[in-house]
């Protein structure tokens, strides 16, 4: 620790950190556009420049190490002028589209223009003109609004280890492009949407299905149902200005009812259903010498990744559909029959933390005879927009409860929202299936936390099982290569595409960062700690579903409705 002077104030600095980190800790704000927490600085945008006494040029604070005795001015006239010019340059070829832009009021470029008082177009260049790439089921790319900060490229390559996009061309012709400038839908993009979360502008956004949903809601012929994923209730409040980590489950249900959805279901219910099927499958594979390690199948980005990068390993994947698809399937079969509604008249919406779920509903096998398990997926952000659009006063809503026949959910299902959650829930039930007893302590500490790969040894009766949790697709390659190379001690692997799990999915509120991930996870764990039914096999509505309709886990009906298959995909990787 040593001291430096900033804006005539003395603050503490630590050796080895950058000026920017020091300033952040002292709550001194310097704007940034290309800076990414935890990654090496590129110095691309130069917005973070500050003036340092005794130095000639302005210094980019994100990449410059602090030294003892530095005297820094973050808002000297020179620094402010430089920043304003950078902003003006960025705006020079930018489309004046704010009114129609999805990022209106949540755009960093717009904020900066406002903060620096840009009131006229002083610099003007030819406007960007590109065709908007709408080919992906999940992501829309609008190059005209791209300011080339490079964050999407970095998250895709350095965090997710996909590398679907990169800088191409040079000079004023530089763009972000896929290989061979192909459309995104045929590229190696796995639809995770992490690039959307980091993009400062409207250049990247989710493919929105709000119009389709609203059309269905106003169609008297349609019976419109909605399901919301386990993580939504602990993140959506942020879109209404609340701090992160607040659970608004009951209010969310009421909001959907007020909008006019005929039924509100909770995907955590079908997460319990997934656990029943998946734990049975795991036990079956272990006891009959099936393919191990078994790998989870609820994260569609991960599924596409393995299909395109490790097609020879798809038999490791659990054949279970994801909770979204399972609920979709039983809504249009069991629920439809029970209530005498024609499946083709049901419009099934799901609210997901994930933009890859938009891709998942289009996969082959996710429905039959032109009746799809799920008809439209909207992200957490879109759901918040919908709620606002219907003029609902979210903050003052009474609490509501999910509809029958899928009304109950356990906290195990809820845990699906965070990395390690599927593992924890599956272990609880697999343990019961094998031993006939509950685990002594239901909490499996080793699979919680934010490390990239978490491993644990679990004793289940006479059985010793090693399990691993991959937290973020960027960590998958390492483990897959180990398995290819002969590693054979693992029985079960959970993989979540997004670092942190669904609570940090590509459809979640923007500005998702480490602290928010932590408090959102905290909210999930708190639910698990405080409620009574914490294991999927004790969910009474699940029991009834098997008794009345499905028969037994892995039975014929389950197989038909709740399981799926995988394929090899040819893409340019």
């Amino acid at each position, binding site marked *: 620790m040593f001291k430096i002077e900033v804006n005539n104030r003395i603050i503490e600095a630590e050796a080895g950190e950058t000026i920017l980190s020091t300033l952040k800790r002292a709550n001194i704000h310097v704007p940034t556009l290309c800076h990414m927490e935890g990654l090496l600085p590129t110095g691309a945008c130069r917005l973070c420049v500050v003036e340092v006494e005794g130095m000639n040029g302005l210094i980019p604070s994100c990449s410059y190490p602090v030294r003892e005795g530095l005297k820094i001015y973050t808002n000297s006239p020179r620094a402010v002028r430089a920043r304003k010019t950078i902003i003006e340059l960025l705006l020079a070829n930018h489309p004046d589209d704010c009114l129609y832009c999805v990022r209106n009021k949540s755009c960093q470029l717009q904020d900066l223009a406002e903060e620096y008082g840009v009131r006229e177009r002083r610099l003007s260049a030819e406007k960007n003109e590109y065709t908007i790439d709408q080919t992906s089921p999940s992501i829309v790319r609008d190059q005209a609004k791209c300011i080339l900060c490079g964050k999407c490229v970095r998250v895709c*390559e350095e965090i997710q280890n*996909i*590398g*679907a*996009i*990169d*800088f*191409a*061309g*040079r000079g004023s012709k530089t763009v972000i*492009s*896929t*290989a*061979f*400038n192909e459309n995104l839908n045929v*590229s*190696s993009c796995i639809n995770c949407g992490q690039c959307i979360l980091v993009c400062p502008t409207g250049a990247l956004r989710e493919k929105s299905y709000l119009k389709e949903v609203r059309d269905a809601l106003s169609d008297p012929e349609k019976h419109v149902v909605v399901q919301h994923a386990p993580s939504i209730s602990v993140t959506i409040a942020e879109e209404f200005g609340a701090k992160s980590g607040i659970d608004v489950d009951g209010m969310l249900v009421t909001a959907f009812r007020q909008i006019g959805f005929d039924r509100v279901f909770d995907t955590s219910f079908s997460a319990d259903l997934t656990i029943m099927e998946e734990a049975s499958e795991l036990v079956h594979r272990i006891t009959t010498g099936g393919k191990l390690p078994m790998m989870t199948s609820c994260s569609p980005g991960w599924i596409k990744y393995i299909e395109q990068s490790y097609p020879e390993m798809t038999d490791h994947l659990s054949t279970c559909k994801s909770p979204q698809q399972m609920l979709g399937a039983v809504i249009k079969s069991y629920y439809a029959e029970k209530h005498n509604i024609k499946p083709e008249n049901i419009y099934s919406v799901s609210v997901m933390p994930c933009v890859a779920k938009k891709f998942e509903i289009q996969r082959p096998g996710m429905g039959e005879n032109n009746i799809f398990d799920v008809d439209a997926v909207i992200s957490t952000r879109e759901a918040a927009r919908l709620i606002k659009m219907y003029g609902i006063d979210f903050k003052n809503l009474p609490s509501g409860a999910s509809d029958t026949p899928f009304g109950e959910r356990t906290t195990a299902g809820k845990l699906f929202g965070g990395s390690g959650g599927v593992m924890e829930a599956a272990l609880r039930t697999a343990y019961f299936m094998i031993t006939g007893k509950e685990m002594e302590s239901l909490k499996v500490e080793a699979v919680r936390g934010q490390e990239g790969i978490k491993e644990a040894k679990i004793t289940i009766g006479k059985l010793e099982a090693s399990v691993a949790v991959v937290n973020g697709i960027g960590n998958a390659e390492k483990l897959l290569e180990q398995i290819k190379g002969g590693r054979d001690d693992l029985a079960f692997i959970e993989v979540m595409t997004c670092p942190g799990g669904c609570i940090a999915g590509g459809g979640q509120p923007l500005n998702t960062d480490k602290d928010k991930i932590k408090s959102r996870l905290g909210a999930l764990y708190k639910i698990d700690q405080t409620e009574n039914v914490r294991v999927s096999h004790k969910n009474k509505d699940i029991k009834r579903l098997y008794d009345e309709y499905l028969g037994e886990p892995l039975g014929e009906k389950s197989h038909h409705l709740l399981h799926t298959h995988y394929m090899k995909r040819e893409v*340019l*990787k």
Partner: protein
Amino acid sequence: MSKDAIAKIMEKYAGGERDSLIPLLQEIQDVEGYLSRKQVEEIGKLLKLPTGKIYGVATFYNQFRFKPQGRYHVQVCRGTACHVKGSAAVLDAIEKDLNIKSGETDRKGDFSLEVVACIGACGLAPVISVNGEFHAGVIPKDIPRILNGYRDTEVQNEQNR
């Protein structure tokens, strides 16, 4: 034959790092005339780079192409002398006439277009070359005549085939 040559080049760069990318791309293009998707994917595997990265790096330079050259490969000199004498307008006229940009090949595979630094024929500026045949002192108005000449030859060739 070119397959062997490609295999040899790939072998030479096996285990290479990222800085072998450009020379590798150059050697491949010298043999194949362009960078095919398949080959870029192989290069990606060899150097452990995503194809998007390779494409990105390659598009930074003018010299790389991603489609085979057309039967008639048009090179437009953009050296200083040619520039001074109006080669930008010439390039523009060619792009309009062929409806392709530099680095591209037309649909039928008849024409491809490339911008080159200096052909070394400054005395003839502005100069273009089609399959090595020089056209000197070109002005935009000449372009349709020059290109149609090749189109006619192509029609005749086709009839003779």
